[in-house]
């Protein structure tokens, strides 16, 4: 569960709604494991719209940059994508950690092929990871109770202020460093 007030089922529902609105397709026909690009016909620009809608619904900030861009900013240029625009072994291993179902991810594929592995399910997971960081207590009034009228946006039960979460880019950077410490995926980083 993302947090006690927002369920994964609710997140899935909102992800389907955002996709349906952006892509003008029937929400009921969207499978959570479909490729948003290959199966649902989205372009890279559509992701901006989808993310924006989810950010408005849940009061969060999803990552604005691609995972491999974050890797290169954090661990050095060339660590994730080589000069031929192909992904490195370390990048492939990291992507498989994030997208375990994506069998097409292998070292040597073109970086442009990576976005096709994003599914409604992986976007829902990204939302879930952010809202799992609901603080124990409200930073503004220290009240330790949260409420949600619609099971999407969460507010403090004391002062009513909207919950603040770490943004997706920040969490991604932390995760990359955690993975690197734990698994040493990038040899020269």
């Amino acid at each position: 569960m993302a947090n006690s007030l927002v369920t994964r089922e609710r997140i899935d529902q909102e992800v389907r709604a955002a996709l349906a609105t952006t892509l003008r397709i029937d929400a009921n026909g969207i499978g959570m494991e479909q490729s948003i690009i290959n199966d649902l016909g989205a372009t890279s620009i559509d992701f901006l719209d989808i993310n924006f809608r989810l950010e408005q619904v849940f009061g969060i900030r999803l990552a604005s940059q691609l995972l491999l861009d974050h890797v290169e900013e954090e661990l050095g240029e060339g660590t994730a994508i080589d000069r031929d625009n192909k992904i490195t072994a370390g990048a492939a291993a990291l992507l498989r950690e994030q997208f375990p179902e994506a069998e097409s991810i292998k070292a040597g594929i073109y970086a442009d092929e990576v976005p096709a592995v994003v599914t409604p399910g992986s976007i829902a997971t990204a939302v879930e990871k952010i809202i799992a960081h609901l603080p124990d207590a409200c930073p503004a009034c220290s009240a330790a109770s949260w409420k949600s009228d619609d099971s999407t946006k969460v507010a403090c039960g004391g002062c009513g202020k909207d919950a603040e979460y770490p943004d997706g880019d920040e969490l991604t950077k932390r995760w990359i460093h955690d993975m690197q410490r734990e698994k040493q995926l990038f040899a020269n980083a």
Partner: protein
Amino acid sequence: MVGRGRTSDLHIRTVRYPSAMQRFDGKIAWVTGSTRGIGRAIALRLARDGADLALHGRSADGPSRRLAEELADEIRGLGRRAVCVAADIARKDEVAAAVEQIEAGLGGLDFLILNAARAPFKDTTRLLERDLRLLVDTNLLGHLFCVQKALPLLERGGGRIVFISSLGSRYMNAQYPLGPIKAAMEAMVRQWSEELRPQGIEANAVCAGLVKTDSYKTLRRLWPELAALPEEAYVTPEEVADVTAFLCSDEARAIGGQTLIVDRGLSNRILRSP
């Protein structure tokens, strides 16, 4: 010399078209990046004014191709010819091939509208080398390649070049590294105007204000305050297209190397030059 109170035929030349004619009948335009947004609106405007169109997207397949084909059908429905060309303008060989296709498909070129753009949204100090190369290769070199390769066609009949710029060329916007490149391109337009005038070609630019196109989807995430702006602060793609068409027209014959700002006065009211 024209005396005070006198008018000269040169200055009051009135452009009239026979009623059945459109002002761009017989003209051929290439609009780069014309599958959506401002480029699409420009292509439609020029077609409605009588021009035949070369439409352009970066990919030869996928959604971009589908959008180009749909627009081509719409333009053909207006009674104009339309061809679709795919090219990464950052690659000179692909630009050359696109120009060859345009000549083969439409027989020439009169208007080159440099609208395609592609850029990361992040602070300049965080740009990776490939971000920088994408930025410069597409948004500076790419336009130069288009002009270089289209020149032999544009020279045939007094061509017009219009570059589509944005307010980032003159006002700093966070995480918008395209702005400085747009500024360089506005300077390039001034260069082209002088260099190409002897060949009968004129170059100008249109600097668009806030437009609700695809890049707006990114900008509203970067600058949430955009949401607070009233609707009248936004320019429509059609308004940018109207001014672009004007710069292609004979009515604009006395304008050279200039950048016309099309922002409903937004920069005049809120953003002030130093």
